[in-house]
């Protein structure tokens, strides 16, 4: 009689353990078996309680770590955003085209050139030529340490595109190293007007302006009829 009672009791306790495990599995980490009696089964019950404790700790730690990782990720994303922004700013800052004299634009280039940068420079310069209507532009590469084939090609393309728009593009400040590279690479710069220094380029531009102005004056002088119109 007592045995059957015991079995009933044991069944009850086992089902209690099952319930507790089920609620733990469902996410309730506060559930414990908490057995009051002292027998063989209570050892298992205590062990299960201990396991649940450990599991709770593990889960808490994992959550903490996950949060940390997420925070770090957000931080990194923000940093990346800043880097992209700065890169864009640098690109804009790195190719300032300014009008320095009547009819004369200047584009000083400082630092190493890569394809992307030369591309942006080229676009900026052409846009500015159309915007200001300047017919002479000076590309000053005094501050450029080295060029490679691609960059030299881009420079050539810039000069040719400027010519197609109807403007002349002068390259000034070619350093000995760049001159050597260009000749070694077999790039023909003979069709492009190059000047030793920015000063020489400016003098050339001014002379060129004076020349076209003189021609304009001559035209006015020799065609008084057109002048009256």
């Amino acid at each position, binding site marked *: 009689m007592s045995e059957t009672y015991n079995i009933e009791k044991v069944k009850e306790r086992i089902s209690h353990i099952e319930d507790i495990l089920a609620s733990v599995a469902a996410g309730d980490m506060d559930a414990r078996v908490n057995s009051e009696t002292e027998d063989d089964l209570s050892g298992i019950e205590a062990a299960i309680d201990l396991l649940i404790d450990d599991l709770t700790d593990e889960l808490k730690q994992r959550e903490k770590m996950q949060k940390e990782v997420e925070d770090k990720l957000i931080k990194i994303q923000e940093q990346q955003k800043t880097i992209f922004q700065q890169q864009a700013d640098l690109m804009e800052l790195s190719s300032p085209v300014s009008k320095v004299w009547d009819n004369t634009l200047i584009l000083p280039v400082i630092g190493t050139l890569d394809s992307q940068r030369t591309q942006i420079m080229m676009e900026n310069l052409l846009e500015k*030529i159309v915007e200001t*209507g300047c017919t002479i532009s000076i590309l000053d590469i005094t501050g450029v340490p080295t060029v490679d084939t691609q960059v030299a090609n881009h420079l050539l393309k810039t000069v040719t595109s400027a010519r*197609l728009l*109807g403007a002349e593009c002068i390259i000034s400040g070619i350093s000995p190293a760049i001159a050597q590279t260009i000749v070694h690479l077999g790039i023909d710069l003979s069709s492009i007007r190059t000047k030793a220094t920015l000063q020489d380029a400016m003098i050339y531009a001014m002379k060129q302006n004076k020349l076209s102005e003189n021609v304009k004056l*001559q035209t006015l002088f020799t065609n008084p009829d057109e002048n009256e119109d």
Partner: protein
Amino acid sequence: MNTELHEKRIPIIKIGNFLIVSIQVDMHDKLAIQLQSQILEEIEKTGAKGVLIDISVLEMVDSFIGRMLSGMASMASIMDAAVVIVGMQPAVAITLVELGLEMPGVDTALNMEKGMEMLERRIKDEDYKLY
């Protein structure tokens, strides 16, 4: 088809010694060929010394149109007329250079006014050489 092309004829205006062609519509190949012969006929008829082709409205120039333009410059120069291409857009210039069409023999100007000056100067120079 013919009438359609006829409607889209690009006007060629004669001012003084020059012909002015302002391309205001998107060029397609047939129109380009038509324009080429039209301009050459007009040069013959009027004895113009210069042709100004304004392409400032053209957003896109393909290799065919590019070749047509540079071809026209050499054809006109054989007929003793200088061709100046006026107002090319930066994007078009970049495209042409990327396509390898650098148009070595063609004169270009930023705008109509500068193109006109250029032609006047050129004619003056030639007159000067003659006398």
